[in-house]
């Protein structure tokens, strides 16, 4: 319902995606189609991160994103992340892309649910951006782009009222409704139950601006306090120490939105989410309705801002697997429950010929005009490309 929700949704999901990709890139070497000496090196990983981040924070893209608009469907948004994940030399199979998106969405759902105040969603966003700036700390050009977006966020959101933030939060919760995919790292940390629902603690610090429950104060008709009473409940709350910073730099205090993955804590999901709650989610995913005009416009605008790199020489660049083995990835693709399939939009297959031509034209314009060095080569060429970013 809030027309200001999309930037927060996009940036936080993007942030989670980068955490996951970074962890997988560090943890995994890619066999196969590359020259034999090649493994994922730091250079490759940074290249991928730089490419994706600079695409994500493209100026024109950000301008479109920040325009007041309704949230669009899960399908449309998923397609954007598909393109974003492929903004570099890295390739993901459908099964890995599905898993990536599951993890991203469940992580942000968790963060939104557990935010003490609706306004704290902004702190979560800042946590993601702080981490993103760390990923590209060596590239001043991209750093500038991110800072620009940071400033735009501050300008757009710092002045909103609590009520408006709650509306944004409610809009996000409607988007995430009925998603109960189980995430291993959440299950292990006991922040998610085995039925896929998140644990909501009834202890800890109360939100900034809220008092610890328990006090009743009675005032007489002159406004003078005449009585105090207390009540107790099962909750075990304490006063918070300090408020997080909403400035460009500062201690956010809140841990939600910081990177919970590390090389030793791999990303996994369980796909056995066969509860009846999926029925409502299934309705949205399965119904094959043609893209509405607005949805196509949205995609065209966003994709118009993306600089998609195509790998040359062969159909794959470096492939990233979000599972531990190729067999696991293959198995996941075959056994993914129908109701959880994202049915990524095939943009060419629209029903409006005019619109199709328009999108194809836009996509065509995104073709890399100059010949690029073969991505199979390492060393100098990659460095040269990085310098060119």
């Amino acid at each position, binding site marked *: 319902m809030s*027309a200001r929700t999309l930037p927060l949704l996009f940036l936080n999901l993007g942030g989670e995606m980068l955490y996951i990709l970074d962890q997988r890139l560090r943890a995994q070497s890619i066999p196969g189609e590359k020259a034999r000496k090649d493994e994922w090196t730091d250079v490759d990983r940074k290249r991928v991160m730089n490419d994706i981040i600079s695409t994500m924070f493209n100026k024109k893209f950000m301008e479109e994103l920040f325009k007041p608009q309704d949230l669009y469907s899960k399908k449309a948004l998923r397609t954007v992340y598909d393109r974003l994940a492929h903004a570099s030399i890295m390739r993901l199979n459908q099964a890995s892309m599905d898993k990536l998106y599951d993890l991203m969405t469940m992580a942000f759902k968790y963060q939104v649910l557990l935010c003490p105040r609706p306004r704290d969603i902004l702190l979560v966003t800042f946590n993601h951006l702080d981490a993103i700036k760390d990923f590209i700390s060596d590239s001043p050009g991209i750093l500038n782009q991110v800072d620009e977006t940071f400033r735009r966020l501050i300008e757009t959101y710092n002045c909103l009222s609590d009520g408006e933030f709650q509306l944004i939060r409610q809009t996000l919760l409607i988007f995430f409704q009925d998603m109960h995919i189980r995430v291993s790292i959440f299950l292990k940390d006991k922040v998610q139950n085995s039925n896929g629902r998140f644990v909501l603690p009834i202890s800890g610090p109360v939100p900034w601006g809220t008092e610890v429950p328990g006090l009743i104060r*009675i005032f007489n008709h002159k406004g003078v306090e005449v009585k105090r009473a207390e009540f107790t409940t*099962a909750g075990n709350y304490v006063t918070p120490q300090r408020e997080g910073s909403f400035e460009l730099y500062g201690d956010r205090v809140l841990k939600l939105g910081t990177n919970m993955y590390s090389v030793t804590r791999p990303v996994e999901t369980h796909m056995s989410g066969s509860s009846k709650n999926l029925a409502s989610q299934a309705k949205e995913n399965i119904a094959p309705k043609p893209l509405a005009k607005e949805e196509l416009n949205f995609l065209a605008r966003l994709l118009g801002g993306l600089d998609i790199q195509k790998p040359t020489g062969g159909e794959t660049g470096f492939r990233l697997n979000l599972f531990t083995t190729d067999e696991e990835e293959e198995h996941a693709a075959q056994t993914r429950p129908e109701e959880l399939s994202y049915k990524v939009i095939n943009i060419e297959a629209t029903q409006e010929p005019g619109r199709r031509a328009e999108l194809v034209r836009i996509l065509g314009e995104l073709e890399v005009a100059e010949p690029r060095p073969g991505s199979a080569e390492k060393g100098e060429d990659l460095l040269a490309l990085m310098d060119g970013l």
Partner: protein
Amino acid sequence: GVPSLRPYRRERSLTLRSSSSALYNNLAVLCPPARPPAFGAVHGTTLSLLGNEGPPRQLQARGGGSALSTPLLTQAAWCELPSRVLLVLTSQRGVQMYESDGSTMVFWHALDVPEHPAAHSVFARGIAAAGGRFICVGTSFGAVLVFDIPPKGTNVTLSEVLEQHRDPITDIAAEQGQAPDGAGDLVTADDSGTLCLWSTGEEFTLLGKIPGSGSTCSSVRLWNGIVAAGYGNGQIRLWEAGSGRIRAQVSAHARWIYALDLAPLTGKLLSGAEDSFVHVWKLSRNLDTDDIEIQHCHAECVTDTQVCGARFCDRAGDTFAVTGYDLSEILCYGPA
């Protein structure tokens, strides 16, 4: 006197076809005399109805037009008037009114929705029957629409637009008991926490305004000249409607309050919040000092659930029902 401290216990749950959305006051209850109650909860674009007769039913938000998505509902409530009961739905597009079983649409009012989304969201929210004759509905512009309802038929007219709020309306409540002189019989609340007190009639009169103090008032009730208001910072405040003075302040919840309800026969107050708790309180007036008192009666923790709706199911407050975000049930509680 000593409030009735009989505890409550969890009874059966009712299954909803879809889970409830995180919206303020997201539980509608109709308690016809000598019949089981009917319930309604909003899920995105639909209202799930559990009637006392017949199979469950779903109502859709109206007014999709050429837009990508069907508009989202914000709230639903049964409005009981002397001559009839109407079921009212509010959405991003406007106001829908149905016969109380949801079978027939009686009236549709479209909000002025701009062609391109403006920075400020557009929606209707806040529903109450008032003055034995009107249904009041709030808007995100801060305006309160007053609809004049005929005893039967579809000839509903927009009688007045009240423009005293500058922020989106959150909730509206009519006097459920006896208003003292000069206290007004309607209260409207908004995002900034501002409360307006009105006297209803052919023309509504603004009797007083209680300014907000930095926290959203998400839910409000009016009983015997006492305004009970629930806030985003977890506080419940009781105000004297006539004077606009604060009479009680409770640090009731650790998170944003989403729902309040009041049982008019006993003065019991129910509060539900994002902190997973539902509390039952007892309001009373000390006849000697004329102070308004509030005591805590009972607490329920709905594990791992952010409560979004809470309502008594009888006028004495012996039973109540609760909804939560992502929960596909209505939880019912009764006397232990």
